[in-house]
């Protein structure tokens, strides 16, 4: 299963933060980036609910899903999210196929995962022509070794987040036309 997912086309960054700075950091990201749709991952169902509640109070528009909700509700939420009724989704680990929503151009690991497989499932895209996107990992002092381990195991590079992120790394216009070009060469 891991072979089918790729990190190609996803630019990965980390921000070094303390636990209590995470929400502040999220605020900064939401004030600086142009987000079409985003997915924010937490490590437990409780933290999903807590974060969703907290940021909703702060004026975010978000849905949440986690593994303890029943399947029908999950489907409903995910369907509505895919339709664009809501722009941001807070969730725990329940994607096994990689995210295949073209509009999602920003994925945030609010909690950094422990296993590289989890990381790949959250960030990876299925298929060779993955959409462009950025992944941002909030890394605490305790995560520092896991970060290295996951980088090594996946043979990828997670860079420190720069002051300005190049828009070309996550805006959709490149990708759409990339697929188009394939068509033209074939047809």
């Amino acid at each position: 299963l891991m072979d089918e997912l790729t990190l190609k086309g996803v630019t990965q960054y980390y921000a070094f933060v303390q636990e209590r700075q995470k929400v502040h950091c999220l605020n900064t990201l939401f004030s600086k980036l142009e987000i079409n749709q985003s997915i924010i991952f937490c490590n437990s169902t409780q933290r999903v609910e807590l974060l969703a509640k907290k940021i909703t109070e702060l004026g975010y528009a978000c849905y949440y899903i986690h593994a303890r909700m029943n399947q029908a509700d999950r489907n409903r939420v995910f369907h509505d999210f895919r339709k664009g009724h809501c722009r941001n989704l807070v969730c725990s680990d329940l994607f096994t196929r990689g995210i295949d929503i073209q509009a999602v151009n920003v994925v945030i690991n609010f909690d950094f995962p422990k296993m590289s497989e989890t990381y790949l499932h959250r960030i990876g895209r299925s298929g060779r022509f993955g959409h462009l996107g950025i992944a941002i990992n909030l890394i605490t002092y305790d995560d520092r070794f896991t970060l290295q381990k996951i980088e090594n195991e996946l043979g990828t590079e997670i860079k420190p987040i720069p002051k300005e992120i190049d828009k070309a790394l996550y805006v959709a216009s490149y990708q759409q036309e990339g697929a188009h070009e394939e068509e033209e060469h074939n047809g």
Partner: protein
Amino acid sequence: DEKITPPPEGIQDKTAFIFNNLNQMNLTPKCEELKEVIGTDYWPWVSQYLVMKRASIELNFHTLYSNLLDSLKTKELNVQVLKETHRNIKILLRTDKSAGNFSDRALLKNLGHWLGMITLMKNKAIILDDLDIKSLIVEAYRKGLQDLLYVVPFAAKIMESCARSIVFKPPCPWTMGIMNVLGELHREPEMKLNLKFEIEVLCKALNIEVGELQPQGILKDDVAYKIMVPQLSYAQRD
């Protein structure tokens, strides 16, 4: 061109935050919030932000952003957004197309879709001084395939909105004039397949049969149809 003054960073941040969290359900409160944040001085900047950073890229939220304009009910903003949309379209039409810049083509297509929504769909005309679609298609044909690859999908995206307009839906003469040129293009034996396909998809959206269009034979005939104002040449001055 007058210079657009960007607001202080704090206002820029709050604007980005509002747009990042905007959806159909919170449109009204977010509108109020936006008005509060922006005050009266920065509508030109917001227009530029909306067109360049959002509408040109986020095709999936065009309806949302169009509804935003409606519920903000700020005349100045509507005027500015339209102006800004045309300004960006003109820049893209005049770029050097030999390199086949795919992101430029996607941006132009998105802006075409957006333009149709904020004009035709709201029963407002696209005036010839802003954009002459028929002339543009003919000009692109006479220039060659590279230009057609930009112009046909762009024009088709604009015209899509006619389907949902009381004034501009077929048989509106303005609409049919443009459709007939596209029909003529469609009959060209050498025409690229995906451009033909774009035209067929548009016809389907407008409930027209491609075969029933009435080409006037103007594509190749520069006596029958003379291009008054070239829109594609990048040497041109305002």
